[in-house]
């Protein structure tokens, strides 16, 4: 890889460092505020009791799970079409974060499911498609890890991300359909009670906090990746000189 390859990324590192600090501060502030609102200010639900507070983690992380995959797909498309090296790194960096949020949504969902539905898990359409989304993330990450040459891995992973992106709506659609055939809609209703403002606000604050946290982590991981690549290039270079 020639040096001009890194010329642009060097600028990026400096800029990203600054943004990362701001985003990190914002995430911390919003998270504290959101948690305060969610745990102290928001009232317990008259039906669900205190367990309703899980929602303030569950819903934002579910949103982020979906958002991260869209981000991943767009970054992969940019990487394939315009061959921008930063897009590769953005895609690679966002996958574990997205998988983490997906996992969080699954865990909080089941924790909530136990008191609400009396079971940790049901094969509801929405739950099932989130689970499959989690597998798509894992496959993407495993492919990155399995191919040593990072440029090859980047392209292969981008192809997979795009194929997966086409598939996500199909899965969603097929699962919805499959579920209604067997499962009476009475068992679970995800839309639940209309949300009261006293709950909406903490939810939105938490959602913003998660998003800022995503930006922070993304930039940190991209900078780390960039440094790793640089170190490796240097090591390879002076090994043979």
């Amino acid at each position, binding site marked *: 890889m020639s040096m001009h390859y890194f010329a642009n990324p060097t600028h990026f590192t400096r800029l990203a460092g600054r943004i990362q600090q701001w985003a990190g501060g914002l995430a911390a502030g919003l998270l504290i505020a959101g948690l305060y609102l969610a745990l102290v200010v928001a009232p317990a639900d008259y039906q669900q009791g205190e367990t309703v507070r899980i929602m303030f983690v569950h819903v934002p992380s579910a949103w982020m799970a979906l958002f991260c995959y869209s981000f991943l797909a767009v970054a992969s498309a940019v990487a394939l079409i315009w061959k921008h090296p930063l897009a590769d790194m953005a895609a690679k960096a966002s996958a574990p974060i997205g998988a983490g949020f997906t996992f969080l949504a699954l865990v909080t969902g089941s924790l909530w499911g136990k008191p609400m539905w009396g079971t940790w898990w049901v094969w509801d359409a929405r739950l099932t498609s989130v689970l*499959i989304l989690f*597998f*798509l993330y*894992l*496959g993407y990450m*495993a*492919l990155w890890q*399995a*191919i040593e*040459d990072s440029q*090859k891995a980047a*392209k*292969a992973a981008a*192809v*997979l991300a*795009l*194929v*997966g992106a*086409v*598939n996500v709506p*199909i*899965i969603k*659609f*097929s*699962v919805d*359909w*499959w579920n209604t*055939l067997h499962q009476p809609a009475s068992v679970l209703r995800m839309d639940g009670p209309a949300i009261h403002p006293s709950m909406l606000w903490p939810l939105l604050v938490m959602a913003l906090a998660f998003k800022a946290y995503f930006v922070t982590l993304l930039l940190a991981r991209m900078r780390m990746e960039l440094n790793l690549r640089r170190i490796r290039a240097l090591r390879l270079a002076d090994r043979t000189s």
Partner: protein
Amino acid sequence: MKPLISIIARDLRLAVRQGGATLLALVFFVLTVTLFPLGVGPEPAILARIAPGVLWVAALLAAMLSLDRLFQSDFEDGSLEQLVLSGLPVGGVVLAKIIAHWMTTGFPLLLAAPFLAVLLNMNGEGFTALMLTMLIGTPALSLIGAIGAALTLTVRRGGVLLSLLVLPLYIPVLIFGVSAIDAAVHGLNAKPHLLLLAALTVACLPLCPWAAAAAVKLSLD
């Protein structure tokens, strides 16, 4: 056209010579299905209830397992780079190999499915639907699988990684396939499900060879 037919003929001949590969995908399918009565118990009602699901899951797994034959051995002995260097469009080469793969895996599954359905006590209404879903759905398995097979080429012993990449992509085929059979078994109209499945296969036909070709080129770099 003619060189592509040569490629299909070559792959078929290799499949026949190499220990009857055709037979073996089939055997895996049959064996997996027969494990179920052993694991779940012999009650006819339960077996009939789960039959469409078990048949399709076994078909998915059999198709997936045979994917490593699609490109891997050609990659390892240098034939794949010779195919790419033959000057034919890489997408065309890939499609030819997918067709040969379907003829040696998907097609035998199709033939075996009704016998296994009898084993699992599936009722008569389900039969036609089963055959139709297999006929329409198995080509999609070979098409989608080709992407995973091509992506894992440079990965040593990529078998299990392949399953992680491919099985989630197979899920729509599974769901549409099973729901068509279920509808037919319960005397409902299976046509909408079959149409969806057909739409899926038709959509795969141009997209998958193209994506797989990109992955194949990558592996030779």
